[in-house]
């Protein structure tokens, strides 16, 4: 089984709801459509199921255009669960039996086997004791599990689930996602529209971040989830943490003591990432330079929305950037020189650091001996020695932070 969405564009009324959506899914995969409300996640699912017809592009199920199938044929292979749960007094078993609809003939007389399949589906979600209960009498989590049993009873190859965990408590959320996970491991595929980032990163193999009807990022959770992508898609400030190979996000605490202090960081090659994030957490404003675009420190400064003095990727620092760097050093309340490596390309950063040292506001993080980090030679050795003479020197980031807190905190 392979499902392909190719260059799909959809109009709802006069609004272009989907703009060139393309992706593919095969069995044993859970793909999350992650995005805020109104981003087009539901529209993608409804287009895949054939409810909405794209005006450009198409959805292909095993290389055949979905519009060639009728709803009954689609429902045999795709189990779609709409977001809103029904309000009904039907009994649980009646609802799960409805999942057999596409498999029944015109007179809709279910066989013993259909009943068996429905009961098994109910059992697989742990709700077999509820079969004669009225749906309206169940709790939110129980309702959702019944609806999932209904989709399972359809025996589809692909699951399309629209916000299956919305309005559920945390244990039900996990339960529902685990049920889907288990089913996918048995050889199904699932596309889940979801706005809970942590559920998406924990249970999905791939994440498509959706914004304004477009897929703006696609890939494994750790590839697409970052402070900046979440800021971009959800317009929310979060911290991204890693834990045991999984990635998860937490809301960023509004810093209590928002200090009106500017700290300039001279860094590069990832040597400044830790201190940049920590300074930002403490409420300092940050400027940094000179950094090459796409350097990991550059990314960190972007994340904390600091001021960047940057240079084209893999290019040596120009005089212009150097002058700009000096200007921000002069403006800053303190300057930190990280444990960076020095080469021909960034020796101007050491010169700038010396300027700061002469202004008596230099804090140096000196973790590893400079000779191991020096790829220039004597000139750099001399510069670094002069800097150390006129600066406060620390062994790690924590010490610098403590010192800064003493002065500014």
């Amino acid at each position, binding site marked *: 089984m392979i499902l392909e969405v190719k260059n799909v564009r959809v109009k709802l009324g006069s609004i272009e709801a989907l703009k060139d959506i393309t992706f593919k899914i095969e069995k044993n995969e859970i793909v999350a459509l992650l995005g805020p409300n109104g981003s087009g996640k539901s529209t993608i699912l409804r287009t895949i*199921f054939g*409810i909405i017809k794209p005006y450009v592009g198409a959805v292909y199920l095993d290389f055949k255009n979905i519009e060639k199938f*009728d*709803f*009954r*044929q*689609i*429902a*045999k292979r795709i*189990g*779609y*669960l*709409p977001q*809103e749960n*029904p*309000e*009904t*007094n*039907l*009994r649980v078993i*009646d*609802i799960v039996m*409805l*999942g057999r*609809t*596409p498999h*029944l003939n015109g*007179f*809709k007389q279910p066989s013993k086997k259909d009943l068996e399949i429905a009961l098994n589906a109910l059992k697989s979600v742990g709700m077999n004791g509820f079969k004669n209960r*009225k749906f309206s009498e169940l709790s939110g989590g129980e309702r959702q599990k019944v609806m999932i049993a*209904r*989709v399972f009873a*359809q025996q589809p190859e692909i699951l399309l689930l629209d916000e299956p965990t919305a309005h559920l408590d945390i244990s039900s959320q996990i339960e529902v996602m685990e049920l889907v996970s288990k089913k996918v491991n048995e050889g199904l595929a699932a596309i889940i529209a979801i706005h809970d980032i942590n559920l998406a990163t924990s249970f999905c193999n791939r994440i498509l971040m959706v914004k304004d009807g477009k897929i703006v990022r696609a890939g494994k959770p750790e590839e697409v989830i970052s402070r900046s992508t979440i800021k971009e898609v959800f317009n929310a400030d979060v911290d991204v943490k890693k834990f045991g190979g999984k990635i998860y996000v937490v809301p960023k605490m509004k810093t209590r003591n928002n200090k009106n202090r500017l700290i300039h960081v001279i860094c590069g090659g990832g040597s400044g990432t830790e201190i940049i994030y920590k300074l930002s957490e403490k409420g300092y404003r940050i400027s940094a330079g000179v950094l090459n675009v796409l350097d990991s420190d550059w990314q960190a400064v972007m994340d904390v929305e600091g001021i960047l003095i940057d240079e084209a990727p893999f290019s040596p620092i120009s005089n212009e950037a150097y002058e700009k760097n000096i200007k921000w050093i002069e403006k800053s309340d303190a300057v930190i020189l990280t444990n960076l490596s020095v080469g021909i390309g960034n020796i101007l950063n050491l010169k700038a650091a010396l300027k700061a040292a002469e202004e008596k506001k230099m804090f140096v993080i000196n973790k590893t001996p400079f000779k191991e980090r020096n790829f220039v030679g004597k000139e750099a050795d001399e510069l670094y020695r002069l800097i150390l003479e006129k600066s406060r020197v620390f062994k790690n980031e924590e010490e610098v932070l403590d010192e800064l807190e003493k002065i500014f905190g």
Partner: protein
Amino acid sequence: MKLIALLTILIAIIFVVCLSLGPSSVGFEDVIMLLNGKADNNVKYIIIDYRMPRIITSMLVGVALATAGCSMQALFRNPLADPYILGISSGASVGAAIVIFLGIATTFNIMLSAFIFSLITAFVVYKLGETKIGVPIYTLLLAGVAMASFLSGLTSLLIYLSGKEMHQIVFWIMGGFWAARWEKVWFITFPITFSIAYVFLNAWNLNAILMGEEHALSVGIDVESFKRRIIGVATLLTSSSVAVSGIIGFVGIIIPHAMRLIVGENHKKLIPATILFGAAFMPIVDLISRTITDGEIPVGIITALLGAPFFIYLLRRAKVQ
């Protein structure tokens, strides 16, 4: 199953009882005499040409209105929806009133005109409710309300203009079975049995639609086409009823709802129960209407008097929930 057997027996009893009761002195022993071929012509006329078509008409109408109501309630997902929701009753009234106003009123003409006008009304309402993405239930509802109000105005105008024929229109609108004849029975038997069979066979899909249109789609039902077909047969049921008996209110709400309380929402059980209860309920109400006074009270008045309090009870209950 038990309920179905019980209702079937009840219908048989009701049939015999209704056949045996009426303002004339013809009674149960005359029915027995008739079965033995010993009755005189007068008795024969009263039982076979008067009471029997009347009872059968009332049963068919009861079944038709109850079933139409039940399907509309599933389609609209609202227990307060009724067979007249698409303006069918107003359309039929205009049809009957025009014929009476023009002075060409015969039993058959009134029936045919009411039937045709109600079909046209339903069709127009459906077209008015249509949008690019299908026929959303709420636009259909609004179109029905608007149409009904327009047509009531038209009916009132015709009543106002028709002078001494006025009472005939008013009487027709009140609804009843006093004019039941075999020709009417033949006229409605086919459309009603066909539509009932259709709804009965689609009970499963009605369950699905009860879950909401999106859910019905998700189990493979072509919702727009199904909606069209259900509205079609419900219209046929209602138009046939209205054509032969005028406007009999509340039956379409009370019966399905009472059955829902007893057998639950599953249409596999609800539809048969509704059909049978409709067949049992209507002849009894008609019996009351023709025996309670010396003359006859239109059935529509009795169902309205019984139905309105029930309707209010439903409203109150919905509010509590």
